[in-house]
């Protein structure tokens, strides 16, 4: 389907019926159908279309609410104390209020992706035209937009075809946001269903954004051998003028690259990035460099290296203008969503803007024309570099010690630190000239700067940490495989069988932000462990960077050690946040491309297939944002569990199964129509792990599905038991719940597991052809 505005006028026409003069006809949309698959039952679902599916999931995975505040302060009746069984002035309960907050969060996340997508699409259509074909992988990708096809029931051919998809997303997010108004929805499970809806809509928005930019900007197209690009502070050539781009929406950054290329300036200027714009700029040009994830903002800016900072949208520190001013670096804001109080110089002449920056009369400006940003950023960086001389806001080591001596050991820094790091102790050591404590903090520091805000002595604590770790920062010379985008249909056909049968033990996707409990290294270690165990590992966003910021005993990063193919033992960086859509898309394509399930507008059946057969798990180890909440919700509706780190409990609720309640795990056996026990798999839909070790064991467990063959289940159990023994200690206590037949038992563990089974009075069970949908039963035996 495509949307085109068609206008034509007729000056004069004579027919047998009438004579027309000055006739103008406008057709808002025309349809050009190029997809012969019959329409499924749920194209463009509304808020309640998929409610029955959500209710099935929520019956099994009930919310465990973890209120982050006892109060509601969202209207003027409040504040209302909702402690325990108390109700607010509007009648709302604590459980409904928590789910309402989760929905708000998911709406913010979805709106952000969809808005990003809209701005990007508008820009790309202006540059390349509505007829620019969608091409995310050439002949290797026939299903170019699996989520859009599934949810909307349309097959987009050109960029213009994506506009009505975003119209739908925008409409749905507006409806969902309205749900959160005072005196609207009152049932927590209905709120939760709408959270799932927001997540699904979010995934559509992300898919639109990434397939549009892959198609129009020439990013790698489902390329398993996308280039390796530089990653880390130590990769930046500080002798050159340096441009820093931060954010998520890439057009201003691509214009910078274009200007450099057109003027043969690329060898003379460094283009560096933080967060997802960094990932996407390296998809546009592998010569650009990624400094690091979101948490690298303060440390990099304060280092004084950037000569100009260009920000677009999302996950940018809101004090960037202040930090930029400290190092005498001009800041260019490029998004209507993030103006920072700056003057709008979009329509000023380039020379005038540059002059303002270089003379220091204008510390920052809003420029809403990406092409102009490209020229201004490059010329300002070149002009500023010699006069700034990399002016740093970091103290020298001598100054560091002097600052440390001012510390009163009040502990407010530690009490402000999200990771409860022993900041005060490290500063006490530093006061005596020993910087080892501060140096150690660097690895686990989130770079939030709350320690500084808390300090009554105004000690620049974060800067002290960065100065103490200057050797480490210089040695941050890693690499990352540039985001490849989609998974090829040919790859899906190859791995579909082994995944569904369980012979590839699972797909583990490390996604999301960098609010880690113990630094980036844990993500890299988890990625490498699961790749070594022949899982398919996917990465995206800040986690994709973290996965590359560690070298193994042979000095190789994850991306050098493992292939970028969607295969057992591959580490597949799909790209930026919006590229997460390709991970969900891969699961959907296993159902449609491999298993030939009808895709078009057929959400329930595909989700039922994914849930029961595709052993995929999302891991957002440092999930921080509302976008991460929306991304997770999109996976939940597809039946894909998500594991978060300990900070993830602040999302206010988990979705947990009860392995001890057999009645919760009934599935239809599609062969007979009987309801049988499918086993407690996957056990949870949203789970916060206390440590990396607990997470790894849970990830291995959550890849199990009712459909696993015995060979597959044995493979998954072998990984689960081995990880449990190594990281937790002993055989997992619930193996008897996961073994269905003697053939499920891993051969190498047979003796000890048989003892365990005997201790638990284990009985053999049948392996069903599982479905939660009675209509999927082959023989109609269901009442």
């Amino acid at each position, binding site marked *: 389907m495509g949307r085109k505005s068609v206008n034509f006028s007729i000056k004069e026409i004579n027919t047998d019926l009438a004579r027309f003069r000055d006739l103008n006809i406008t057709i808002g949309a025309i349809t050009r159908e190029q997809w012969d698959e019959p329409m499924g039952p749920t194209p463009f679902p509304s808020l309640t279309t998929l409610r029955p599916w959500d209710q099935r999931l929520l019956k099994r995975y009930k919310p*465990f*609410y*973890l*209120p*982050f*505040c*006892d*109060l509601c302060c969202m209207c003027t009746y409040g504040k209302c*104390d*909702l*402690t*325990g*069984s108390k109700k607010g002035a509007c009648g709302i309960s*604590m*459980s409904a209020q928590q789910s309402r907050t989760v929905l708000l969060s998911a709406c913010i996340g979805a709106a952000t992706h969809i808005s990003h997508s809209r701005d990007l699409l508008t820009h790309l259509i202006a540059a390349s035209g509505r007829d620019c074909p969608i091409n995310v992988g050439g002949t290797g990708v026939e299903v170019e937009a699996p989520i859009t096809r599934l949810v909307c029931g349309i097959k987009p051919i050109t960029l213009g075809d994506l506009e009505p998809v975003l119209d739908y997303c925008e409409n749905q997010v507006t409806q969902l946001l309205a749900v959160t108004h005072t005196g609207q929805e009152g049932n927590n499970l209905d709120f939760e269903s709408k959270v799932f809806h927001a997540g699904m809509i979010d995934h559509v928005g992300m898919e639109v954004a990434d397939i549009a930019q892959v198609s129009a900007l020439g990013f790698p197209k489902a390329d398993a051998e996308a280039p390796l690009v530089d990653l880390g502070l130590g990769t930046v050539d500080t002798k050159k003028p340096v441009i820093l781009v931060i954010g998520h929406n890439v057009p201003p950054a691509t214009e910078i690259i274009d200007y450099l290329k057109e003027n043969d300036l690329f060898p003379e200027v460094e283009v560096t990035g933080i967060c997802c714009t960094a990932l996407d700029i390296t998809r546009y040009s592998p010569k650009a460099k990624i400094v690091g994830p979101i948490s690298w903002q303060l440390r990099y800016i304060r280092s004084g290296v950037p000569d100009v900072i260009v920000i677009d949208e999302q996950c940018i520190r809101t004090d960037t203008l202040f930090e930029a001013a400290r190092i005498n670096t001009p800041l260019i804001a490029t998004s209507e969503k993030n103006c920072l109080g700056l003057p709008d110089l979009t329509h000023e002449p380039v020379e005038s803007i540059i002059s303002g920056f270089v003379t220091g009369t204008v510390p920052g400006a809003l420029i809403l024309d990406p092409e102009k940003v490209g020229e201004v950023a490059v010329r300002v960086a070149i002009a500023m570099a010699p006069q700034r001389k990399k002016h740093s806001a970091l103290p020298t080591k001598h100054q560091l010690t002097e600052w440390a001596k001012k510390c009163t050991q*009040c*502990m*407010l820094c530690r*009490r*402000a630190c*999200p990771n*409860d790091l022993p900041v005060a102790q490290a500063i006490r050591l530093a006061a005596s000239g020993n910087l080892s404590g501060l140096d150690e903090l660097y690895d686990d520091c989130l770079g939030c700067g709350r320690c500084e805000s*808390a300090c009554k002595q105004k000690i620049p604590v974060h800067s002290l940490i960065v100065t103490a770790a200057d050797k480490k920062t210089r040695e941050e010379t890693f690499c990352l495989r540039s985001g490849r985008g989609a998974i090829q249909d040919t790859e899906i056909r190859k791995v579909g069988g082994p995944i569904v049968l369980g012979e590839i033990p699972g797909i583990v996707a490390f996604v999301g932000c960098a609010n880690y*409990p113990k630094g980036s290294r844990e993500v890299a270690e988890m990625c490498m462990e699961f790749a070594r165990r022949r899982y398919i590992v996917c990465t995206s966003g800040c986690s994709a960077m973290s996965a590359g910021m560690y070298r193994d005993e042979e000095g190789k990063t994850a991306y050098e050690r493992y292939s970028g193919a969607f295969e057992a033992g591959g580490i597949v960086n799909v790209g930026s946040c919006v590229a997460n859509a390709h991970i969900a898309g891969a699961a959907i394509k296993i159902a449609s491309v491999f298993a030939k399930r009808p895709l078009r507008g057929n959400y329930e059946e595909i989700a039922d297939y994914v849930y029961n057969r595709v052993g995929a798990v999302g891991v957002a180890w440092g999930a921080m944002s509302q976008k991460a909440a929306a991304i997770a919700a999109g996976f939940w509706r597809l039946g894909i569990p998500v594991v978060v780190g*300990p*900070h993830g*409990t*602040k999302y*206010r609720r*988990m979705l*947990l199964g*009860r392995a*001890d309640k057999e009645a919760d795990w009934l599935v239809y056996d599609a062969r007979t129509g009987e309801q049988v026990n499918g086993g407690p798999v996957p056990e949870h839909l949203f*789970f*916060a*792990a*206390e*440590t990396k*070790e*607990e997470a790894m064991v*849970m990830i291995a467990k959550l890849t199990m599905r009712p459909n696993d063959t015995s060979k597959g289940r044995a493979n998954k159990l072998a990984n689960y038991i081995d990880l449990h023994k190594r*990281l*937790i*200690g*002993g055989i*997992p*206590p619930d193996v008897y719940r996961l073994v269905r037949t003697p053939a499920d038992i891993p051969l190498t563990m047979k003796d000890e597991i048989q003892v365990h089974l005997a201790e638990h009075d284990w009985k053999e069970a049948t392996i069903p052809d599982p479905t939660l949908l009675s209509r999927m039963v082959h023989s109609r035996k269901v009442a």
Partner: protein
Amino acid sequence: MPMNESWQTAEIPGPKKASLIMKPDIADAMIRRAKRPIMIVGHGIIEYDVEGRPLIDCLIDLSRKAKIPIVSSASTNKEFLAREFEPAAIMSAIDISYRLTDPEWKGLDGKESYDLAIFVGLPYSMEWTILSGLKHFAPGVKTMTFDCVYQPNASWSFPNSTIKDWAASLKGIVENLED
């Protein structure tokens, strides 16, 4: 340092806040009064000593003397196994806490639900949110924390303490239970 402020300064819950365990006798009385106590032990315990002994040994003593089953979360189990102590269960903190909100749940041994849950050694903010979940959704379960910092969402918590004061209190609790 204020004794009854959230250790993480910004994590202020609301009107209902934990009572302070100012003396070992208070915790001791609560433990004695409980019919079915349970203790959830996180990986953070490994970092602490109680007057020269590892905290985990102190908790094992407490478990044995007061007959409190221990649920070991994360990799804490390895530490117990190294001491030839078998926890009542290996479960994630999230999982065991969720079950505590179910009044129908009959406990790890299938006999009866718990009425006192003691937490120690979880990451501060994770313990904070879990205790909040129990405060609101497990009315039949009182909660207590044995960490050296104030947890406002518990029913009873130690104040923000020096390690020395906290260790002395904890040791006192264990010794009292011998009486």
